[in-house]
């Protein structure tokens, strides 16, 4: 009865307004404040290899930048390219244990907008913006410790490892390390002179070994791709206190699996994967392109602005798909040739990207592309 009376009274009473004016809740300020952005000047650009450059960073007015970092951490660069904001993470190649300015080292990636921009456009004196250093691929330095570290680097994966290695060598005089570096050929060995210099200076505390996919005649290092088998051969049966692995995903998977199979406890293995932080939508190619679907032998032409999925469906191919916006992975296909541009972010994992997979619904052929499936 009371409820009924209230209900009827409500018919003739002015209801409360349909909205509420709100002040920000105090809990929002409990949340971690937004990352701070640092304006940095390129003090120097160093050509490390034909495809790799090191950018030495300083404060806009000169001198060290206004942040501290740990060995193994990375910087996220925030760049405005053609009106779109792009973010990419790059590991520090410098060591905080040595004097000198911090630096990052960048490999030019095929089709990589940001790495191309950094390689082609940035020069000494230019300014860039970066977030606070971040990342957990670090180690707690203990000057009194006597430890054995193993570091395994594939290609540009040496970047955080050289920082960690220098830090250990300088700050833990009782510790030693084994550093295995894998590269395609001798020309692509990054920091070769620096590593040789470290080996000469620290003697028995640093065992440095290079592996080359294509070794020149007379090469006295390891030969072949630096995979799990080669790593186990090189390391022997000694168990180290910690293993740091960084490189392409297949190499990391192979090495980690091999280490575990050799009895290395999983908690002793540390890995670092390179990933996009948060990329903006990619610029779509303004030209058409040919796409071949290898399984069916169908060769089709995508119009400008058409995704691979759209072009395939239009041509009558039965391609799987669902969300059409990079969120579900239903349209995943593997590419065996050609370059594509893919809208970010999407749900493809780093491992899938490394293995050549792409999402047809948000990928655009930049030139002739061959898709293995369908």
């Amino acid at each position: 009865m009371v409820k009924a009376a209230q209900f009827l009274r409500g018919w003739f009473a002015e209801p409360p307004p349909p909205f509420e004016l709100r002040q920000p809740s105090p809990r929002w300020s409990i949340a971690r404040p937004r990352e701070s952005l640092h304006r940095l000047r390129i003090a120097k650009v160093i050509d490390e290899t034909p495809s790799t450059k090191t950018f030495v960073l300083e404060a806009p007015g000169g001198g060290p930048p206004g942040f501290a970092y740990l060995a193994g951490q990375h910087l996220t660069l925030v760049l405005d390219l053609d009106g779109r904001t792009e973010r990419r993470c790059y590991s520090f190649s410098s060591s905080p244990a040595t004097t000198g300015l911090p630096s990052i080292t960048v490999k030019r990636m095929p089709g990589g907008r940001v790495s191309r921009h950094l390689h082609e456009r940035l020069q000494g004196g230019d300014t860039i913006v970066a977030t606070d250093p971040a990342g957990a691929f670090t180690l707690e330095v203990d000057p009194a410790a006597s430890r054995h570290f193993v570091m395994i680097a594939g290609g540009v994966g040496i970047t955080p490892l050289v920082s960690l290695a220098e830090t250990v060598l300088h700050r833990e005089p009782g510790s030693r390390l084994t550093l295995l570096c894998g590269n395609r050929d001798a020309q692509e060995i990054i920091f070769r002179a620096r590593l040789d210099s470290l080996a000469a200076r620290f003697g028995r505390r640093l065992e440095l070994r290079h592996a080359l996919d294509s070794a020149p005649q007379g090469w006295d290092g390891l030969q072949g791709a630096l995979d799990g088998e080669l790593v186990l051969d090189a390391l022997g049966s000694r168990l180290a206190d910690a293993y740091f692995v960084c490189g392409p995903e297949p190499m990391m998977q192979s090495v980690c699996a091999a280490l575990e199979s050799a009895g290395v406890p999983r908690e002793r293995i540390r890995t670092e994967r390179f990933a996009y932080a948060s990329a903006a939508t990619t610029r779509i190619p303004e030209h058409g392109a040919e796409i071949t679907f290898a399984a069916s032998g169908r060769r089709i032409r995508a119009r400008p602005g058409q995704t691979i999925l759209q072009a395939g469906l239009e041509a009558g191919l039965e391609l799987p798909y669902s969300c059409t916006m990079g969120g579900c992975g239903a349209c995943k296909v593997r590419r065996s040739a050609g370059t594509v541009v893919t809208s970010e972010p999407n749900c493809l994992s780093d491992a899938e990207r490394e293995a050549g997979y792409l999402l047809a619904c948000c990928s655009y052929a930049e030139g002739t592309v061959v898709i293995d499936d369908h």
Partner: protein
Amino acid sequence: MLPERALETMPSPARRRIQDVFDAMRMATRVENKKVLVALAPSVARGFLLKEGKQGEPVGMRAAHDAWFDFRYQGDYPEMYELYRRAVQNQWDGDTQLDWSTDVDPRNPEVPVFPIELVPLAGLAEHGIRLNRDEQMRFIHDFSSWLLSQFMHGEQGALYASAQVTESVRWVDGKFYGATQVMDEARHLEVFLRYLETKLGKLYQVNDNLFTIMDALMRDARWDMKFLGMQIMIEGLALGAFSMMYQSTREPLLKELLRYVIQDEARHVHYGVLALKRHFAELSGSELREREDWTFEVACLMRDRFLAHEIHDEWFGGRLKRSDWDRVISSSPFMQDFRQIMFKRLVPNLEYIGIFSPRIREHYDRVGLTRYAGGRNASELTAEDLLTA
């Protein structure tokens, strides 16, 4: 029913209540399927008549579903497990990945939260209501707050519904995935609430239509109805709406927020489609018909949800009849586009899971919803359509 002239002589609170009764009756008389009427009527009463969502107090919705345990732990739905892994890998943090330091002025025409075309100024002018520049900016501020408030309320519904779905789905792999959606929805609720509180400063009450839908699917004991209501209808329509909002906003924080949310929503819809495609193939003809009819009624409720009666009552309650407002808002170009994009994404999914027969298509035709459906399938909308402004 009372003639409109008689209605106008009543005090405005009573007039609004009677209009609500009319809305509820219109809804009830439209329903042909008795089972659907029985399923929806209590929720319509709670939403439209008792106004349970607008009492300013927490509302209880008694759930009646079974929580399914499976102690065999079979890999029973690999596609769902894959979706789960993707969801795990793509979790984001609304606190650190969105730039909350962005200054947002919801009345700044240079950086509009939503364009002025969102509000039906021309339609209002036809009824003698002309807003000056300052009023226009206040109006667009309120309308933006109302729109985002409704999506925020929808996210709260999605949070609880996804929790229920996680309990009630029978595939273990579906439970894995469902748990990630619960987290997604909490994050969506968090970022919309934070945006409304810290940037727009105004929260609107839940719309009666939305309340009714949430009430109906939260209380329904059948797991597939929860999926259908939440994953396909609410999430599917939200996906379209978010893409439209993403394309139309020029405010960078909201744009970035929507971009993240859209990525999650796409997964959620895919989950619903996966689950229901398999389940509906096993239902009888009458069970499928019931689901078709239920979905149609929910679609009508969703369509009418954007009539924005809360805005009408706040701004034009004494100046413009609700029926005129309904016509003004329904025919505004922006809202028409809005509906078109929303429903364009819905129909292909209904077709795919098998509940868009020629019989029900006639119903959609009759109320004008197929004119929004447009395309044959979802491929018409690409990621670039949705994300490129």
